[in-house]
Structure formats: structure tokens, C-alpha cells
């Protein structure tokens, strides 16, 4: 789960990381109240989960109430790369002497944690990595040992942070590491981490991705689930326990297993079509799950055909077949359905469907033939 900037800052604050005082506002009235409370000058920031807010006019400085009203009014409702701004974060403006970069993430090849620190912050770290890789100081951290203050002190020196910033930055890095580990982040990034003219170090932005697998031990994450930008169909699928990702094409996809679902997207593409979604019904899916999957797909107006690709393992194909029939009973499925059924109880599954086959319910013997047929029907 990606957090909004304001949520990331709230998360950081829980771990003692210094952030600017501020609050959220969903309306102009709320924005005025927040600004009055924290005092001018303030920065008005669009809360969207997409990069390039500044360039799109989503971040503005307001020195007084007139400017605040103007900017808050303009930014609320603004469309930034398809994300409509529903919430603002308004915080006290900070003077900046220096901009640094700090982050922790998993180093998958080395199976350790990776810290990245740079005295050249404020721009995208991928750009820095490309143009000036020596400006980034990497630290590999053994999860068993963690990060101690001594190591952090050496690290800030190595990264050439300004002398006055080093001790504060080292302490903050240890706190950020604790937040990253105890807070179960996939990514905890501060960019920029700033040094103010009066030599204080603090986090001016927050980018946090939480590991959903750890949500069972973080009841506090429920507060982060506020989201106006999430795809309604993705929400619907989540409620039904399905793993769904909306895409742009016209062939609805249902498969069992993440790998097979990805592969199904690929073969649809190879057959000249494009997938409307990724949907993995998981292992051991029964008729109910299958019916729920059909309902989710059917609610997508882009879908012109549905490709059900099942290789039964724990999932039994006869259950899948029953689910398809159940879904056809429950809802009016408008698109033709092409099924490829193999694996555990495939013979039984095909037999269940046999009496119902027609031009809108079709089986094909292989994955490739089914893909071609589904694409044909969608185009």
C-alpha cells in the first residue's frame, strides 16, 4: 500500500522523525482553518499518489489568506495525470539551505536491507543514479544486526552531508530505519531531507510503501485506507478476496495463480488483443470465488470477452465450472466467455459445462487457442 504524503509524514512522526507542522483539508473552509491555525507562510500540497505534482501546479506557496484561497481553490479538484485531488496537505513553509536524500528498501539480490543517502537531494534519485552515481552512498544492512548510531555517523560522513547536519541526520536515519523495519515498510524515503538556514534537519516529503502482508500486526494502518483515487473495481475485488488489477484492454481475464494470470495477459497480447485486467482467483478457489470473479469482470464496461484460464492443482476444475454456471445464473454476463480448463478434475469440469455451451460460452483445448478465440471475440 502506497501512502499519501501526509500519511507518510504522520507515520514518520510516530517514530520521532521531524516533519513540518501541518494538517489535511478536503474543502476550502478546512484549508482556511488549517492555515489560520499553523500561521503563514504555508505550502499547499495536492495529495495524490503520482509523481510530478509540482510541475502540474499541485504544490503552491501561500504568503497570506488571499493566496491560500486562490491556490487551495485551484488545487482541489485538479486532475493530475488522471488523479483528481480530493485532499490537501497544508504545512508551514520551510526555508531550505540544503536538500539531501535518504531511503531504506529491500535489497533483493543481496537479501539484505539497502540504505541510500545523498547530499544531492530534491530531485528523483533515479536521475541522480543515472547522472551522478557517485553522489549516492549505499549502505548494506544485515537485518539481524540492524543499523546503529555509530554506523549511521560514519555513513553521513561518507555521503558528505554538511558537518552541521551530520549528527541530526545520523539520529534521524536510525529513526527512519526503525520506522522502516518496525513499521513494515517496503520503502521509506525522505526526499528532500532538508537542512534549514538555522541548521535544523527535517523531512520535507515522505514516500512510504507499506507491506500489505504485515497488515495483521498493524491495526493502525486502517486509518490509512482513506482513498478516493483507488479504482472502485479493485475495491470490489478486494472485498471479495480476489487479487485484481485493472488494465486498459478489452479481454477480461480470470486465471488461477499469479504466474498463470500474468502469462494469460501475455498470450492475449501475442494473439493481438489486450487484457482488461489481471485477476488471480488463487489456489483452492471454489464455485463462489469463481462467481465473484465473473461479477467483478462483468462490471467493467471495457470488457468485450472473458477468458477463463484454469490449470487445476488445488483448485478443482469441476468447482470452477460450477462457479461459471452459478455466475451465469446470478448475473447477466454480457460478454462471451472462453474457457480453457486443464488439470485436477478437468474432465468432470468440461462435462458439467458441456450441456450449456453455445456461442457465448465456449471451451478451447489449449491456452493459445483460447487466447486467440477470446481476442477474436473482443475485436
Amino acid at each position, binding site marked *: 500500500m502506497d501512502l499519501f504524503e501526509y500519511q507518510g509524514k504522520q507515520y514518520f512522526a510516530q517514530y520521532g522523525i521531524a516533519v513540518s507542522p501541518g494538517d489535511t483539508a478536503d474543502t476550502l473552509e478546512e484549508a482556511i482553518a488549517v492555515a489560520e491555525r499553523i500561521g503563514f507562510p504555508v505550502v499547499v500540497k495536492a495529495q495524490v499518489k503520482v509523481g510530478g505534482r509540482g510541475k502540474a501546479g499541485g504544490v503552491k506557496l501561500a504568503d497570506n489568506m488571499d493566496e491560500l484561497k486562490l491556490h487551495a481553490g485551484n488545487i482541489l479538484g485538479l486532475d493530475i495525470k488522471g488523479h483528481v485531488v480530493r485532499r490537501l496537505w497544508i504545512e508551514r513553509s520551510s526555508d531550505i539551505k540544503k536538500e539531501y536524500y535518504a531511503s531504506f528498501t529491500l535489497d*533483493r539480490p543481496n537479501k539484505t536491507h539497502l540504505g541510500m543517502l545523498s547530499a544531492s537531494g530534491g530531485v528523483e534519485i533515479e536521475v541522480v543514479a543515472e547522472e551522478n552515481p557517485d553522489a549516492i552512498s549505499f549502505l548494506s544492512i544485515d537485518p*539481524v544486526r540492524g543499523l546503529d548510531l555509530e554506523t549511521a555517523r560514519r555513513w553521513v560522513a561518507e555521503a558528505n552531508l554538511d558537518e552541521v547536519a551530520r549528527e541530526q541526520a545520523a539520529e534521524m536515519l536510525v529513526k527512519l530505519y526503525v520506522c522502516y523495519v518496525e513499521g513494515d515498510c517496503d520503502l521509506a524515503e525522505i526526499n528532500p531531507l532538508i537542512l534549514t538556514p538555522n541548521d535544523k534537519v527535517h523531512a520535507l516529503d515522505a514516500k512510504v510503501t507499506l507491506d500489505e502482508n504485515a497488515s495483521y500486526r498493524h491495526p493502525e494502518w486502517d486509518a490509512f485506507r482513506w482513498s478516493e483515487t483507488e479504482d472502485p473495481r479493485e475495491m470490489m475485488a478486494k472485498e471479495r478476496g480476489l487479487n485484481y488489477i485493472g488494465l486498459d484492454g478489452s479481454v477480461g481475464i480470470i486465471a488461477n*495463480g499469479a504466474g498463470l494470470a*500474468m502469462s494469460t495477459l*501475455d498470450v492475449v497480447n501475442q494473439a493481438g488483443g489486450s487484457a482488461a485486467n489481471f485477476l488471480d482467483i488463487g489456489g483452492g478457489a471454489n464455485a463462489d470465488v469463481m462467481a465473484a470473479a465473473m461479477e467483478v469482470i462483468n462490471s467493467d464496461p471495457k470488457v468485450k470477452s472473458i477468458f477463463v484460464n484454469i*490449470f487445476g492443482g488445488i483448485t478443482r476444475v469441476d468447482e470452477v465450472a460450477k462457479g461459471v454456471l452459478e455466475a451465469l445464473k446470478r448475473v447477466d454476463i454480457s460478454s462471451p466467455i472462453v474457457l480453457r480448463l486443464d*488439470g485436477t478434475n478437468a474432465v468432470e469440469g468440461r462435462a458439467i459445462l458441456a450441456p450449456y455451451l453455445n456461442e457465448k460460452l465456449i471451451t478451447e483445448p489449449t491456452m493459445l487457442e483460447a487466447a486467440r478465440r477470446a481476442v477474436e471475440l473482443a475485436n
Partner: protein
Amino acid sequence: MSIFVDENTKVIVQGLTGSQGRFHGLRNRDYGTKVVGGVSPGKGGTDVDGIPVFNSVKEAVAATGATASFVSVPPKFAAAAILEAAEGGITFIVCITEGIPAHDEALTYNRLVEEFPGVRLLGPNCPGIISPGKCNIGITSGDIALPGGPVGIVSRSGTLTYQALHELSQQGIGQTTCVGIGGDPVPGTNFIDCLAAFEADPETKAVMMIGEIGGSEEERAAEWIKANMTKPVVSYIAGVTAPPGRKMGHAGAIISGSKGTAQAKMDALREAGVYVCANPTEAGQKMVEIVRAL
């Protein structure tokens, strides 16, 4: 021959009294696997369909001489179960649990490496391992595998592993061992571990490697293949059309920025002399061709 497990491997199931552990544990035994015990704290002294249950791995190992464990417990207990297996004397741990927090995985992996260097962990979030006709640990349907070799399979995905087994078995081509390394970000066993074992196994004549988007294990495998592998490798990488920034079902299947794309993996593998195919069917056909020409 087979790699990692064979007809003599004695297996315990951690979580045998749970519904999933019972279902798969008994299925594995029915396949012919030597499932010699189960572990469920507080349930020692009972049995599951004749398989004795112990309170701890240590007790189970002492009583049965098991060397392998099948960990089938919920995510919040999985890391502790893996470490208990290692502490209890198990040397090959298969963990099928999906949904373990990434930080637990990273910590557990490094603890195993540092404290139990002789232990191999397969998974988590994997379908397990099958040496057809000999031993099946995990959730793979034994009936889609064909004993006798000569193909070794290593895969990050469960259902694509079944697909690969199916494609080969249908054509009468058997497998030495089929290893599902799993789709999580910190797999205990990686492609290279399996490729090296297959390279060393005289009965394995060719290897099918199924990868997917995310991470750089396939690229690292490609380097290893280029330098060390003498046997032909056929590969398929899932997720060519996957959008960046989204976890495609598996926790590890994510394109981060420009990293982890299927294209980069396919390019690296091709460069290493691997036969890279566009879909699992094509990969199966290519493997059939290679085996027939052996």
C-alpha cells in the same frame, strides 16, 4: 537421480493438524513420500491418519530421523516455524506459506545463513518440490509429473510449474526434479542453487526455467548459466505485458521503476545462450525438441 529430495527423504509436516497441512501432507504420503511425522504444539501423542504428531520439531526429529520439513502454518507463525525446524536439526525446509511479511523473510533468511549454514530453505510462498516417483513435498499434483527424467524444472510460479509439467508429461517426457522456488521477494533457494544442482545431476540432461517480472534473479541466473552451465536451458518469463509499479499477485512480482522487466530478463537469458520462448506452450515444445534430439 534427483536433486534435494529422493525416495529416502524422511519428511515431517509442521502444521499437520491444520486443514491445509493435513490435506497436502496426506496427499504427499499417498504419492509415496515418506511422511514420518507431524508437529503441532500441544498435540503431541495424537496422530493424523496414522502419522504420529509431536509437540516440537526436536522431538519429531529424534523419534523419526526426519531431515526434511514441510512448513504449512499461517504467515504470522511461519518465520518461527522455519527457525524451529533449523534448530531442531532439519536440513531441508519447504515453506508454502503465502503472505509472510517481507521483513520477517529477510530476517529469517539471514539468521539461517548465519546460524545454520547447512540448512536449505525452499520458499516461502512456493508450491514445493517433486522428484517424480520418489518424493513430493508441497502442493503439486503428483499425477501431472512423469518419473524418469531427463528434464529438471525450476520455477517462481506454481500454476506455471504445473503447466510446464503438463506440457512435458503429455509428450512423454519425464522430469528428474521440479522445484518451485516461489514468488516472494526473499526466496530461500534461488535459480542459481537449482541450476547448479541440475548441472551436477547426471540424470538431468536439460533444464526448464520459468521466471517472472520483479527482482534480478533471472539476470543473475543468466550470468551463472553463461559461465557454468553445459546443459541446454529453455526459459519462459511471465509478465511481458505487466504494468510497472503493481504487484502482480506474487509479492515479488513487481517492476520497480525500470527494474525487473520481463524484457531485460529475456535479453539477459538469450545473451547467455538460453532458449527463450514467448509462452509456456512454446517452451514445452522447444524442450520436447531438445530432448528428442539428445
